[in-house]
């Protein structure tokens, strides 16, 4: 059976198709995410029951609860969702471009590049507003992506070569970070180290809006380019034969992917680095759920990535309560075994 929902308009001339299964999965993931968010918001030193959380969200109910929910806890969980969603879309693009399931931003050094630049800013340029952090992280990630592109992609490249070169460059970036941490002022280094664990603890509305604007530019770009990505997934020759300007389109997609890693990393730190977590796992989950590495995967991966991070934030908070474990640590604890599982399962990565 054809499971495509076709939408066509004559005025303006418009037509596209949606994978019905993907639409259903997105709806389910959205509901799950909302549920986990409500639980997450309710937890803490000042516990609030889920019905009260919903009341507070709607602007009714107790004033203290409203303040705790709306000002303190909602931005945190929303930031977690955005971070997860951004990383997931970034990973889906990279894995598609490289045609390799290991090509996650955390693994091929994109996160490491963003991390390096951000740590440099935090350690050495102390008097700086957080608004510059996404741009520094973006610059770092772009620099790494450019080096990888030149070394691995210029002559047409295999996915495994890209992954290996990426791991090498990530290691270099990490070495420089270690050097910076050893040389820097102790107060700044502590700040950088905390940031490097990756956490959404204490995120404010300011950071939420910052990230939202950033993602609002690059996520639509990713979706607009999803047709191009699908064609590139068939290999360079087929893509070129179908009329894709592969260098240009790959460049645009790479840029989008890098931006979608840089923004989240700038706000929440290099979550899951260097094992790969959301950017590695969410695309795989999307493929499992939709049954296909094709239509709808971008959106499903975004929802799955958001859910994963909101969930790991929740787990980090309840696991050793009242001590909070940053979601970055949870990410690493899950990401590393998953990476080993991936390597074990696939003989030809």
């Amino acid at each position, binding site marked *: 059976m054809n499971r495509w929902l076709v939408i066509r308009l004559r005025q303006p001339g418009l037509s*596209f198709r949606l994978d019905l299964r993907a639409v259903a999965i997105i709806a389910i993931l959205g509901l799950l995410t909302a549920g986990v968010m409500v639980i997450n918001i309710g937890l803490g030193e000042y516990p609030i029951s889920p019905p009260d959380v919903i009341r507070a969200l709607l602007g009714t109910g107790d004033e203290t609860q409203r303040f705790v929910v709306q000002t303190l806890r909602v931005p945190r969980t929303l930031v977690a969702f955005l971070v997860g969603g951004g990383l997931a879309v970034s990973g889906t693009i990279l894995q598609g471009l490289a045609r390799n399931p290991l090509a996650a931003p955390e693994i091929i050094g994109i996160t490491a590049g963003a991390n390096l630049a951000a740590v440099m800013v935090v350690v050495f340029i102390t008097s700086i507003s957080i608004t510059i952090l996404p741009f520094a992280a973006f610059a770092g990630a772009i620099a790494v992506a450019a080096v990888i592109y030149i070394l691995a992609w210029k002559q047409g490249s295999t996915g495994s070569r890209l992954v290996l070169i990426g791991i090498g460059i990530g290691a270099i970036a990490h070495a420089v970070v270690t050097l910076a941490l050893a040389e820097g002022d102790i107060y700044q280094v502590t700040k950088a180290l905390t940031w490097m664990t990756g956490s959404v603890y204490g995120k404010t509305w300011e950071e939420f809006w910052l990230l939202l604007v950033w993602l609002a530019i690059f996520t639509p770009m990713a979706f607009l380019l999803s047709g191009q990505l*699908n064609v590139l997934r068939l290999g360079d020759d087929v893509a070129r*034969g*179908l009329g894709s300007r592969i260098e240009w389109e790959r460049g645009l997609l790479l840029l989008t992917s890098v931006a979608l890693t840089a923004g989240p990393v700038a706000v929440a730190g290099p979550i899951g680095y260097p094992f790969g977590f959301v950017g590695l796992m969410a695309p795989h989950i999307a493929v499992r759920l939709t049954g296909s590495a*094709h239509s709808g995967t971008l959106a499903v991966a975004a929802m799955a990535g958001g859910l994963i991070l909101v969930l790991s934030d929740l787990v980090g908070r309840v696991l050793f309560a009242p001590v909070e474990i940053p979601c970055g640590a949870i990410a690493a604890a899950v990401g590393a075994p998953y990476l080993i599982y991936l390597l074990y399962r696939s003989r030809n990565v």
Partner: protein
Amino acid sequence: MATLRAEALSLAYEKTMVIDGLQLAIPTGRITALVGRNGSGKSTLLRALARLLKPQGGAVFLDNVSIFTMSTREVARQLGILPQSPSAPEGVTVRELVAQGRYPHQRWLQRWSKDDEEMVERALVATSMTGLADRPLETLSGGQRQKAWIAMALAQETAFMLLDEPTTFLDIAHQMEVLDLLYDLNAGEGRTVVMVLHDLNQASRYAHHLVALREGCVVAEGTPAEIVTEDLVRRVFGIECRIVVDPVAGTPLCVPVGRHGTVERSDDHAAGLVGMKR
């Protein structure tokens, strides 16, 4: 009628010249097979005809316009290329793959027009893949998978279809199925087919026009009946052979002579068979 030809074409990989100053005109509306030994430049030539390889010199002309001056999308609406052993990502269904063939016809807001849908269905019917349309590619046999790729190229709706060794890695039954399908597409819809084939006998049977290549040069071209001779096979493949008439198709059939397994030479083919019994 659309035309495709190469003019003083020179092709190289890195610094190694593979083809130097080649002239070739593809007969429109016919099936052309490129044959030759491994490394004779036949796949290289096909890739250049499909603008996958940029020439060092000369040009490929599609309707008298050099394809490297056209937009790649414009070329894709007139010329489809199926490279050797293409691969699709995990889980992609036959229908999704075939729909990719519509890519050069789609625009930002027109992603799935009525035409797109119809052409995909037609391509599925033409390749008799309708029943398997919703199966993921990796669950199909090699022959079915190759037919799915051909269906994708069909959905592209091009006057020219170029295929690089479409029968490689297929068993004999699937080889015949794929070649019969291409023959039908040519006969029924008048598409010009250009393919690289390994098997000279299959090429002789299924192609109207043969182009024999050796070391990047066209040694001979013409209908199989005209050009396939013992001398040509010696020059192109460097082997001794006997040419007999294919008892099924009536086309030339090349029977190679190796160093072993040969009975005494007899002018009469039937006598040879008798000799074998002895």
